[in-house]
């Protein structure tokens, strides 16, 4: 078990190395010139050349990658070309909104999707089942921002239940915090609910056809107990896997959702940085998201042992 954990953790190192090299070379090749953007509309070519030199953008690839990797290894993500602030600081400032949004979406999605999936599986072929399946396909077919605008129009502008934009930190009170996050979480949750409901249903159907479920029923256990205790526990492995893999969807969706609802999170930081070609920030954010994604899926792998006692490493 411990050996497995160590091996899995070690295996993430080359993966992160590939990510690092990829991210760095990607942006090294980028055509946009940050110096020109910084200098603004009024600057002369001479001024731009001076700024470029002062930013160290005129040195060779390997020198810059070496320096960069060395600093990353020491936890220094560099300094933003635009704001002159440490990238680590900029990320720290924006991690709370993104983390809150994602966690809320995750919790709400699981609370909605798992019962829906179980219900659909229990009544296979019923109207409920068909409804859930339709919703699941629709969730995948509608762009996130369209859902966002529809929700904002109905629930914020017309009904005035929630604010149309912005973020209230948890320190500003739990209800204001939640109120500002409900619409974004509902927006972001659509695709995730679709995904989890679908896999829950599929995995439950697989389990429900097994002999031991019939045995449990025969022993006189209640329908609810069978479904939610016996069957769901045995169906958990694929569900947890998809929850982990689906984090990629959440990250991609957060980029769009944060821009629709003007949430000052990492997603907007990413888009802003890319449009402005703020190299250190792009590198830091992509690395961080990828790292989080790898770690979450590592945790998911380790969770298998909890859900499925048959799996031993």
């Amino acid at each position, binding site marked *: 078990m411990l050996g497995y954990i160590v091996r899995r953790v070690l295996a993430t190192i*080359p*993966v*992160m*190395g*590939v*990510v690092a090299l*990829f*991210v760095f070379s*990607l*942006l090294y*090749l*980028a*055509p*946009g010139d940050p110096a020109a953007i910084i200098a603004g509309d009024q600057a002369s070519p001479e001024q731009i050349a001076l700024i470029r030199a002062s930013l160290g953008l005129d040195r060779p690839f390997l020198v810059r990658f070496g320096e960069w990797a060395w600093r990353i290894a020491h936890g220094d993500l560099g300094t933003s070309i635009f704001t002159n602030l440490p990238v680590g600081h900029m990320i720290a400032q924006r991690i709370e909104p993104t983390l809150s949004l994602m966690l809320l979406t995750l919790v709400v999605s699981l609370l909605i999707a798992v019962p829906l999936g179980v219900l659909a599986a229990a009544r296979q072929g019923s109207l409920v089942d068909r409804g859930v399946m339709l919703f699941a*396909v*629709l969730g*995948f*077919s*509608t*762009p*996130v*921002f*369209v859902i966002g*605008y529809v929700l904002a*129009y109905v629930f914020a*502008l017309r009904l005035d239940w929630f604010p149309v934009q912005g973020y209230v930190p948890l320190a500003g009170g739990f209800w204001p915090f939640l109120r500002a996050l409900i619409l974004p979480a509902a927006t972001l949750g659509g695709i995730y609910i*679709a*995904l989890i409901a*679908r*896999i829950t*249903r*599929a995995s439950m*159907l*697989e389990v429900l056809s097994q002999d031991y479920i019939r045995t449990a029923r025969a022993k006189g256990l209640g329908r609810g107990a069978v479904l939610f205790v016996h069957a769901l526990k045995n169906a958990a492995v*694929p569900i947890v*896997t*998809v929850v982990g*893999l*689906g*984090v*990629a*969807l959440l*990250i*991609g*969706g957060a*980029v*769009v959702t944060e*821009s629709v609802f003007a949430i000052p999170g990492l997603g907007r930081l*990413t*888009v802003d940085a*890319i*449009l402005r*070609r703020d190299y250190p920030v*792009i590198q830091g954010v*992509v690395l961080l*998201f*990828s790292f989080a*994604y*790898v770690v979450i899926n590592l945790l998911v792998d380790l969770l298998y042992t909890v859900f499925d006692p048959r799996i031993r490493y």
Partner: protein
Amino acid sequence: MSARLLGDAGEVPAEALAELLSPPRRRGAVRGFIHRHPGIAAGGALVAVMIAIAVLAPVLGTVDPTALAPARRLRPPSAMYWFGTDMLGRDVYSRVIYGARVSLVVGFAVAVLASLLGTAIGLAGGFLRWLDALLMRVMDGLMSIPSILLAIALMALTRGSVRNVVIAITIAEVPRVARLVRGVVLGLRELPYVEAAVAAGTRSPMIILRHILPNTLAPLSVQATYICASAMITEAILSFIGAGTPPIIPSWGNIMAEGRALWQVKPYLVFFPAAFLSVTVLAVNLLGDGLRDALDPRLARKL
């Protein structure tokens, strides 16, 4: 889509696919097909309609989708302008109809390219053990960057064009195909008839052609439809963020991106392209689900 994320489209005999794609032999076969595979029938029909719209765009009552007319800007939908006009006075109906071309081209091109590239990498990994570790580390690295983030980052490299969007999304999708194909190859290598072929001295290319490729075709075709759907959504998201195809090209993503500022006052600017995009993606997803069910009877009962 779930299958896509699981990287498990099942291992399906190619005969099922062949059977599925062969022309109906007798009368009533069509009705029987629709009855047995409603998803494929509905999805396929919708996709066919969209392809027809894209191909026939010039004769569907459209005008030049890029023709500016600042004097008649932001007209609501009417008999003259079926879907209204946008902020530069362009006809939204024409733009949406022509937009089908961009979305379908992006969707299909990414599906085909990602399948080809992924298959090549997957085969290489599955057969050349010395290359496998390196290829799979690179694939794992790419896969650990959330695909939309990866596509956005790639788009920041170049100027927006349909070609570059296709390349960026393809790179983001390739690792999953490569993983899938490699998995199939590793599974097949253990099968008696492949082992026998190896033992008999058959050269690798022949084994690939004769045994491996046909067996990957079924899971790959399912995967490819999901990639196609996902690529169309990603294209729209890239345009929405401002990192997609150049706005002069009427893609559904661009029309929505341009209309988004006015979603309160001119909702039709977003509604029509959104509806077309959703229906098309829905159709492709239905097709994918149907294919998977048809090709994998084991899963068919459940999903």
